[in-house]
């Protein structure tokens, strides 16, 4: 094998490493938004998954218990958003923004309580390289599974109906509030795997700001991927590729900030309709209130 092939292989590997948390978060976002709930709180769910998995892994010495706890934490945070968005019919954007602020602060506060130091935790028992590979493969399995669920199963059809027209869905006998609630919660579980991956697979600790806006990049991937699981996965890979290239391109004189801004710029372009027709689910972001 020559040097170029080796470099290419390394680049592919690094792309997968960088894209995996984005894929999980974006899939969580897709499921939530297809049911009609905009999930601005993806970043907060990543933080909850990452911090909780590290804290529980430290407490139990078992990284699998940590991973499980991270998923539960992500689901609980998502359930809070889902409850507010369905039963209380609150503004989803406002609630999600608040959750992100609260989750970041709670994790920073938790670091002081659990690890008695601000900024970062100590190193904790982690999932290791095998765990990382498993989570990377699982991300693609999750993407295929979500695609199948949304397009081929009755529940997927119900989710999509609630995202397009919850009133009509209810006329057809679907409980729109319940469907939306579970779509957001399951989406939260998928998203939190991204946080678990960051903290326990790619690293073995939690530090303040380690999610670094990945929840928002995932949101961009959802839009760029046209609200489909496969499209969002493709967009996440695309963004992951540029994150992997960052170091190389930086040496070629391209400023790293430009590369970091790429996902956001791509989403802005997509929003304006320059990258083909982009249409959100018709009832995306609108609270549904029964009459």
């Amino acid at each position, binding site marked *: 094998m020559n040097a170029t092939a080796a470099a290419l292989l390394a680049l592919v590997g690094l792309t997968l490493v960088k894209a995996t948390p984005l894929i999980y978060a974006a899939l969580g976002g897709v499921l939530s938004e297809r049911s009609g709930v905009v999930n601005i709180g993806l970043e907060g769910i990543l933080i909850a998954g990452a911090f909780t998995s590290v804290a529980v892994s430290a407490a139990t010495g078992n990284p699998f218990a940590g991973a499980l706890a991270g998923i539960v934490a992500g689901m609980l945070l998502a359930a809070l958003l889902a409850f507010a968005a369905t039963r209380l019919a609150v*503004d989803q954007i406002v609630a999600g923004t*608040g959750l992100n602020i*609260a989750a970041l602060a709670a994790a920073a506060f938790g670091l002081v309580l659990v690890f008695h130091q601000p900024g970062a935790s100590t190193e904790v028992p982690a999932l290791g390289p095998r765990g990382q590979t498993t989570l990377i493969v699982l991300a693609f399995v999750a993407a295929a599974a979500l695609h199948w669920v949304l397009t081929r199963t009755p529940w997927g059809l119900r989710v999509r109906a609630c995202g397009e027209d919850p009133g009509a869905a209810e006329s057809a006998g679907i409980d729109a509030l319940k469907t939306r609630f579970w779509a957001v919660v399951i989406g939260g579980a998928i998203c939190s795997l991204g946080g678990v991956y960051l903290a326990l697979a790619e690293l073995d600790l939690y530090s303040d700001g380690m999610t670094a806006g990945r929840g928002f990049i995932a949101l961009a991937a959802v839009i760029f991927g046209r609200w489909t699981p496969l499209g969002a996965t493709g967009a996440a890979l695309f963004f992951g590729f540029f994150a992997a290239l960052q170091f190389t391109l930086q040496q070629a004189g391209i400023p790293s900030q430009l590369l970091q801004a790429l996902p956001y710029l791509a989403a802005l372009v997509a929003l304006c309709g320059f990258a083909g027709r982009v249409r959100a689910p018709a009832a995306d972001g609108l609270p549904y209130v029964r009459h």
Partner: protein
Amino acid sequence: MTAALLRTRAFRDVAVVIVLVFGVGSIAMLLAHVSPFDGFYALIDGAFGTKYELAETLVQTTNLLLPALGIAIAFRAGLFNIGAEGQLVIGGFAAGWLGAQLLLPGYLAVPMVLLAGVVAGGAWGAIPGFMRARFGANEVIATLMLNFVAALLTTYLVTGPLQQGGAGAAETSPLLKAAQLPTLFGTQLTWAFVIALGLAFVMHWVLRRTVFGYELRAAGDAPEAAKRAGIDLSRTALLAMTISGAFAGLGGASIVAGELHRFNTGLSPGYGFIAIAVALVGNLDPRWIVVAALAFGALQSGGYVMQAEAHVPREVVSLVTGLVIVALAGRRVVAAQRST
């Protein structure tokens, strides 16, 4: 009757905020093994105890009041500006860059520096406004994404082509003396506080007494009816977002000209996001936003003292702020405007 109802709702909101601040705050303090009495004493004493602490509270009030007024304008027009943070950063950068090289006497330099912030922040706010007016792009996601673009762009500029702060520093050179905002009462409080208060009253007047204010509110309250009445919704959206960004940009400029005396990339601890809570608690009414900004300003400045003296991590303040936003997201005024 409407007045009585409004008062009831406002009452409930204030009750929710107080319960969250003291309830969640106490629990967090107990978890940190600090008596809530000591913790809250440090917080309140730290916000109001001395002349300088009071001045710091008013500085923080100013930093929150300006973006909050902008957010409220967008909200009243039925738009959600989640991008105040980015507009504030861009405004601060423009002020810092101009202020470091403007050889003018103070009575010209200070207004020019503040104006630079207004123009830059307004332009940054106009981008999502234009995207919405021209392409129907969702302004929520656009403003959110532009926060990151603003942070990355200014970081690039001050570490790259416009680097002035010496090798490795992500900041501009210091503002020339003439371009710095004059202080008040021998404290760190500056004229920015007075300007922000004045703008709150101007905004109150514009919203209630001018045709533009009426059009803005009509576009937010009943877009269909407004359209039928001949109000140009695209133009209103563009103007509302531009003004909204200009307020946040002025906020950034006043931090640079009054506090830091230079732009650096860490100038905001999230004022643009905390300001969302301020605007909501203030019921999107400029007069009440002033009161809400004072309350959150006190939490901000008192939080530093609480951490230093009572050893309660100041993240408790952010935690409570985030929960206040979640709790007030269900307000009719928010949900109704966005679902139309």
